[in-house]
């Protein structure tokens, strides 16, 4: 670890801290329908959308109608995505490489993946998806899965803030305002900024460059004979990358235009673009804590939640940065003369699967940020991280992606933990728990528990089933030993958590993985939203009770500590056994000099 590395990490955090308030205030105004600077541009467009689609913007929805509208919309967009993928060769627009139709199981997996804000990718984009498919369906989902997440979070906050109310707002209006007022202007500026720094934006066919030094490639054929070929050209994949890159990060989606994602120099060419990418992941989720405080008229509560998120962020990044700075002990014990120390001339550390321009600090920071939030973009390969370095992204997702979290999803996930924390505090003092003037009763706790139980059930259930199937499950592994278990565990954790990053050695483009991961993604998104919305509806109906001396305050450092403790205990009780057989065991064996 170096002083410069820590400086970059702290600098990044201060950017998040200073942008949270202005953006959070703006988001509040957008959903409270107050006047904003963007009204001139978007208000006419908004009205026309409602007119064309037959939406009554004054109509208020109960939680059930809100949820049904959300589910129907998600289903329609999922089917459209599936259709475009299957027909991309026939549409023959913006498909300069003449890529064929996407196979059925892969198209299903991808449609589920992008609809749920997961952006798990079982495919290599540059050889699978046409420019049209990427723009029309994948980038489209990047906007609307994020807008839907925001809408749900706002509906939940309204449930807390409103009293004796049957309704939570209008799904179509919230989604439209999220996409037009927040995501679109943000992406417009951000995409152009990225292009100015070297992220590509074009519809060119792949360029054919003549190599400066022809390259000889030796390959072994099926008959066991080795053949040597001389390659003289390099085919350079292109595309409308920046426009998709902007919403990929700002909407915490994470699906790369290219296979290497944000490690690809055309997606993330410089340290500055890298900083912007990390910042844009946390931008909206961090601001939403301020929105929470404003909408519930208790700004200090918003900051207490922010503080809990920030503490967990720093724990994660410290462990990841430390682990990745370490030399691989196996290179020492093999008496290889490899220099792994950090110096003015190099970053040192574990450079397998990392880019020189990012080095160790920015790779560890990016991995922490992308899994704290449900983004899942990567600028380094998590599969090649040191065991404890790879443990951090895994645990971040397992904790429920509430450390800032995904756009919207992070906030409502965190509020479930807030309710649990308040409930536990209530148990400790022997009083009916209250949260911001609302009594927390058995129905609310049941819904919270449903939310916290569906999550591990999907992760551990699918992982266990996969482990018991040598032919379907284990044959896809790229690494043996405990790391193999980590690969499977990471896949189902990432899918259920709607993250989308991977221990990418696992070949997930098989029937079993495509189908089961697709199901895990839908479970992790929609089965978990339903209890959230049910609780929101229930909270909105309640009367406000004035605070008494027995009320546990939710804006103090004590509350922050209790919240962090609740998250860590729930996570540890659920996942420690699985994690100890994967990354922790691998760490111990690596220190003992064992390879597989």
């Amino acid at each position, binding site marked *: 670890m170096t002083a410069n590395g820590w400086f970059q990490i702290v600098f990044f955090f201060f950017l998040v801290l200073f942008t949270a308030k202005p953006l959070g205030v703006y988001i509040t105004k957008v959903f409270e329908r107050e006047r904003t600077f963007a009204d001139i541009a978007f208000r006419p467009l908004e009205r026309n959308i409602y007119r064309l689609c037959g939406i009554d913007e004054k109509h208020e929805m109960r939680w059930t109608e809100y949820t049904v509208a959300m589910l129907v919309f998600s289903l329609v967009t999922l089917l459209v995505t599936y259709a475009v993928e299957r027909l991309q060769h026939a549409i023959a627009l913006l498909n300069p490489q003449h890529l064929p139709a996407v196979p059925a199981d892969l198209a299903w997996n991808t449609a589920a993946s992008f609809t749920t804000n997961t952006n798990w990718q079982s495919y290599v984009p540059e050889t699978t998806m046409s420019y049209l498919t990427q723009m029309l369906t994948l980038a489209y989902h990047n906007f609307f899965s994020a807008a839907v997440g925001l809408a749900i979070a706002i509906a939940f906050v309204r449930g807390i803030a409103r009293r004796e109310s049957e309704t939570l707002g209008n799904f179509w209006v919230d989604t439209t305002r999220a996409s037009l007022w927040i995501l679109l202007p943000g992406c417009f500026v951000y995409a152009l900024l990225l292009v100015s720094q070297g992220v590509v934006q074009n519809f060119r066919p792949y360029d054919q460059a003549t190599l400066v030094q022809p*390259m000889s490639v030796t390959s072994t054929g099926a008959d066991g004979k080795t053949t040597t070929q001389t*390659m003289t050209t390099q085919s350079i994949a292109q595309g409308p990358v920046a426009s998709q890159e902007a919403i990929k990060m700002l909407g915490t989606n994470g699906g790369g235009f290219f296979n290497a994602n944000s490690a690809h120099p055309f997606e993330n060419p410089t340290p500055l673009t890298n*900083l912007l990418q990390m910042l844009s992941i946390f931008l909206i989720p961090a601001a939403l804590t301020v929105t929470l405080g404003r909408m519930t008229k208790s700004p200090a509560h918003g900051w207490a939640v922010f503080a809990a998120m920030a503490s967990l962020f720093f724990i994660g990044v410290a462990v990841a940065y430390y682990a990745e700075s370490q030399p691989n002990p196996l290179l020492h014990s093999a008496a290889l003369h490899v220099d792994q120390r950090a110096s003015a001339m190099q970053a040192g550390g574990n450079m397998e699967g990392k*880019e*020189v*321009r990012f080095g160790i600090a920015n790779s560890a920071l990016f991995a922490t940020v992308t899994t704290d939030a449900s983004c899942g973009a990567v600028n380094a390969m998590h599969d090649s991280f040191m065991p404890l370095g790879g443990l951090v992204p895994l645990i971040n997702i397992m904790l429920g992606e509430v450390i800032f979290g995904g756009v919207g999803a992070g906030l409502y996930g965190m509020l479930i933990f807030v309710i649990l924390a308040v409930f536990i505090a209530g148990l400790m003092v022997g009083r009916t728990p209250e949260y911001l003037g609302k009594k927390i009763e058995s129905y609310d706790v049941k819904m919270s528990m449903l939310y916290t139980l569906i999550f591990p059930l999907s992760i551990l259930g699918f992982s266990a089933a996969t482990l018991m199937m040598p032919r379907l499950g284990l044959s896809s592994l790229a690494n043996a030993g405990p790391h193999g278990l980590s690969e499977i565990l990471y896949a189902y954790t990432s899918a259920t958590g709607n993250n989308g990053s991977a221990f990418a*050695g696992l070949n997930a483009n098989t029937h079993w993985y495509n189908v089961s991961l697709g199901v895990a993604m839908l479970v992790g998104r929609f089965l978990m939203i339903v209890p959230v919305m049910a609780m929101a509806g229930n909270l909105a109906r309640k009367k406000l009770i004035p605070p008494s001396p027995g009320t546990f305050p939710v804006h103090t450092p004590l509350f922050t500590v209790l919240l962090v403790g609740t998250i860590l205990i729930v996570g540890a009780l659920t996942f420690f056994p699985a994690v100890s057989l994967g990354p922790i065991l691998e760490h111990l064996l690596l220190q003992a000099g064992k390879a597989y």
Partner: protein
Amino acid sequence: MRRHISTALLYTLVTTLIFGIGYPLVITGISQIFFRDKANGQLLERNGTLVGSRLIGQAFTAPGYFHSRPSAAGNGYDAANSGGSNYAPTNQKLIDRIKGDAQTVSQDRQGTDVPVDLITTSASGLDPDITPASADFQLARVARERHLAEPELRKLVEEHTKGREFGFLGERRVNVLELNLALDQLAPTPPHH
């Protein structure tokens, strides 16, 4: 319910026009007008031939060139098939590969440890850069092959070394393709493979 379905269908259609078509086309238009070179991938030409992109690495293995990092993208530096090795730190294949590469590479400079980036694959498989340590490690060999004085070559390397952005962001690095193109111009010895 039926009303929600018709609304959802219309809504998907209308918003796809705005976000799926309008937005990327407008961004492409503006980019192609104001940032043409950047938007097209900063392509490099030599004598009228396209020889690569400033941002995308190429494999260099001849002794007269600075070598790039090993690559796991396709058959190596396949810019239409990016990706990393995804070897875990405990994977025997990783250790064996590094062992093999380190033996070859260490002949450049006996008695000095090989900088770690020179024997590890990058995340994209297209890393255009090596560390200043790796450039320095190869300096004596390239100078010998190209019949250049070491100080002269060191100056060229320093000219092609990028510092941290704004003095603190990212890491110091040397762009291998740009450096080797400059090298060909400075001392046009045909490198033998």
